[in-house]
């Protein structure tokens, strides 16, 4: 009950945010990224955090949603919502195939196999014609119920809605039979099986829920950006970013992925938009024309992935249970 | 030679050994007998540094607990583990070379000694360890231990899973090894045979020593039988 109220309060605050910060497309854009990563990571968390099945290939489901939606809208003029549902179906089919392969494997092999499946999906999208190949797919125009889809606001609320839905599902699972069973599987598969848990049924269930939610986010993202290619929606980097967000916040906790996204996405944004470099130049700390100034200006934008790497290493070595896990232990 | 006092050890937060005290004098064969899960293997692992322990373990008046496993081997304490744990993809010779990892100068000489003790190993010198029978693997495991010039040999259930014939061979070999000047700490479920060749013995039950005496005393003690058969 406490958690439901917490979700409602946070969602309420988030819903009011656009009114507070005004209609700055830049800030709304950053907030959309935060909400999306929080939702992606929470969706991954259902499978990775609760069931303990570390999928390294979640980009495949994000990409299925994005590609299905874009193809159906741009080539067949489908309604965006219908194409989103179609995306869910495609993602679930890929999830079922993946599940039938990877869930037979344990340990090292599971992670490797999930990457291999995702890479097959990525390379297929890159090589087929109907997916636009390396060019990707561009969407020129899209309409839904007269909403202004050129504004970012509908997508802000869309992402928020999916995040709340994902957290709600996580909370429901956590307090129901399925959630208990998933955690039992994470802790000890043999013990779980001996207590009457059908391992492959419950693992697939978690995967399907997780994949469907991830696919919805992919659809939303695609219509929001209106351009996708394999490096944007199917790359291994995306899968890894999703996991890192959960790890840094705290795997297997309700709020960990959200916390991870709130911390990481703005950090990446600051580095990407070179706020630090600009500030240093502006305040005269570094001269724009000096060697360092030029270097900062040209390269700091690339540094966000480097910082991700450093945070990951520090986190695994010193906070393997994430920030929430750390505080839980201290408490 | 080896002095263990109030030893506590276990895995993670799970204690297995509770205040164990054991002494071994030079030249002895000492057995620790007890049923499954009593803590026998844990005791040997604590001595050889595979697991951390609290209490006192001194070897020739030097504490062993701060030393890493390989430094303990260097001091001549050689642990032949339960289940033999030979290197399956290595030949007999290569397994023996590994046993003499720290004793490279006497390698040839020691290998000859092992082959004299277990002629069967000499016949199979190029066979892969993983393809040998349980009894042969046990000989190899003991032989591998001897390659390290042991002063104190820790043997963990050498008769486990062996036929009576092989058990006999192994126990005879242990006596021969002992006569050549090696002190032996033997951990066994095979109560009669191990106590029979031992100078002294300890009976361990649920992580504590419950009985001690000479081999003969324990053999004739009705309590020992009771401890194992519950009669």
């Amino acid at each position, binding site marked *: 009950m406490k958690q439901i109220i917490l979700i409602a309060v946070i969602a309420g605050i988030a819903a009011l945010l656009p009114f507070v910060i005004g209609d700055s497309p830049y800030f709304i854009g950053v907030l959309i990224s935060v909400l999306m990563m929080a939702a992606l990571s929470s969706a991954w968390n259902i499978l990775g955090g609760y069931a303990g099945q*570390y999928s*390294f290939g979640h980009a495949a489901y994000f990409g299925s949603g994005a590609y299905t939606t874009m193809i159906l809208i741009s080539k067949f003029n489908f309604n965006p919502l219908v194409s989103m549902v179609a995306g869910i179906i495609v993602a679930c089919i890929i999830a079922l195939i993946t599940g039938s*392969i990877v869930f*037979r*494997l344990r*340990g*090292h*092999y599971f*992670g*490797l*196999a999930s*990457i*291999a*499946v995702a*890479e*097959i999906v990525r*390379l297929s999208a*890159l*090589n087929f014609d109907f997916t636009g190949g390396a060019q990707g797919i561009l969407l020129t125009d899209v309409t839904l119920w007269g909403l202004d889809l050129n504004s970012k606001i509908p997508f802000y609320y869309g992402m928020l809605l999916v995040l709340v839905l994902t957290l709600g599902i996580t909370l429901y699972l956590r307090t129901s039979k399925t959630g208990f069973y998933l955690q039992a599987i994470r802790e000890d598969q043999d013990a779980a099986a001996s207590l009457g848990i059908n391992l492959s049924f419950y693992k697939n269930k978690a995967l399907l829920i997780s994949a469907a939610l991830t696919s919805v986010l992919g659809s939303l993202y695609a219509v929001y950006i209106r351009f996708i290619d394999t490096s944007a929606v199917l790359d*291994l980097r995306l899968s*890894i970013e999703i*996991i*890192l967000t959960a*790890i840094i916040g705290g795997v297997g906790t309700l709020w960990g992925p959200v916390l991870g996204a709130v911390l990481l996405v703005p950090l990446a944004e600051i580095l990407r938009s070179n706020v630090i470099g600009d500030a240093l130049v502006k305040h005269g700390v570094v001269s724009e024309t000096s060697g360092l100034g030029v270097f900062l200006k040209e*390269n700091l934008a*690339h*540094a966000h*992935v*480097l910082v*991700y*790497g*450093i*945070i*990951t*290493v520090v986190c*695994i*070595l010193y906070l*393997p249970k994430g920030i929430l896990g750390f505080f839980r232990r201290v408490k | 030679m080896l002095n263990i006092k109030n030893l506590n050890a276990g895995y993670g937060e799970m204690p297995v050994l509770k205040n164990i005290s054991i002494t071994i004098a030079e030249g002895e064969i000492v057995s620790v007998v007890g049923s499954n899960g009593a803590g026998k293997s844990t005791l040997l692992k604590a001595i050889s*540094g*595979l697991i951390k322990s609290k209490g006192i373990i001194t070897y020739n008046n030097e504490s062993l607990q701060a030393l*890493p*496993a*390989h430094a303990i*081997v*260097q001091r001549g304490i050689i642990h032949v*583990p339960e289940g033999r*744990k*030979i*290197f*399956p*993809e*290595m030949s007999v010779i290569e397994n023996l*070379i*590994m*046993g003499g*990892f*720290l004793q490279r100068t006497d390698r040839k000489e020691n290998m000859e000694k092992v082959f004299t003790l277990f002629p069967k190993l000499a016949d199979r010198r190029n066979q892969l360890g*993983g393809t040998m029978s349980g009894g042969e693997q046990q000989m190899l495991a003991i032989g*591998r231990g001897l390659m*390290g010039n042991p002063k104190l040999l820790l043997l963990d259930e050498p008769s486990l899973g062996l036929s009576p014939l092989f058990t006999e061979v192994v126990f005879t070999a242990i006596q021969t090894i002992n006569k050549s000047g090696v002190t032996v700490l033997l951990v066994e479920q095979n109560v009669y045979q191990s106590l029979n060749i031992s100078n002294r013995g300890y009976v361990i039950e649920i992580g504590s020593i419950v009985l001690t005496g000479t081999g003969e005393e324990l053999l004739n003690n009705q309590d020992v039988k009771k401890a194992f058969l519950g009669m």
Partner: protein
Amino acid sequence: MFFLQSLLSGILTGGVYALAGIGMSLVFGVMNISNFAHGDLMMLGMYLAYFAFTLLHIDPYISLLLIIPTAFLFGFIVEKVFIHRIISHPHQNQILLTIGLGLIMSNTALLAFTSDPKILTTSYSSSAVHILGGISLSVPLLLSFTITCGITGILFLFLSKTTTGLALWATSQNREAAQLMGINVAKMSAIAFGLGTALAATAGALIAPTYYIHPMAGHTFLLKAFTICVLGGLGSVVGAGVGGIIIGIVESMSSTYLSSDWKDVVVFIIFLVVLLLRPQGLLGKKGEQ
């Protein structure tokens, strides 16, 4: 003729893949860690060869004499500073740590060398020898393959004939028993990671003359190296060698008879089929269960 051409160039490329696979398998065998930084270590080898060539004017094949010890030392230090702390952690943490290290390496390279691809052109880069009439074999590939065979041979002798080599091998078979032999397994892990790094960097240097050199170049090879390891049986050095050649041939054949766009898909499908049907690898022995 096509077939033979395809087969031979497959074997030549496969040789270098094998080197990358062997390095990864060695690390896996001794430390039981899937090293996701392996591709990035290859990338470092490519840059080392590139800078040795452009700055010091050393032929890439000669520069191996410098690259191998440098990479070994680098790997040894990385193990001592980072990897050894997580050796008994859950798999996913090990994977994530090595992913993090890989990200640091590739993105440091990105900052330092920019994303512009570099090309290492030697006088013989595009020359080829012709045999049996129509079959042409690229000189750099032929040289790489010869060096690969040499290095693999030396490594094999090291592992099977020297005491340190045997100790490494023993550690990979049974870590606890190795400890009981007096083998310092922590040191063995560092040596294994050093060797793995040296092999990855060597593979990188060997392909440098025939590939674009850029900071993200390692990623393609990472997954290939995993496929090779799984094919040969994780931890098996000989298996990885064979696995590398097989992958080389499969790629080359798929390019010839299917399309070069789909060669990686074929490789991954084979990877999954092997995982499902023979998780112990083509050459691996069947385990307990």
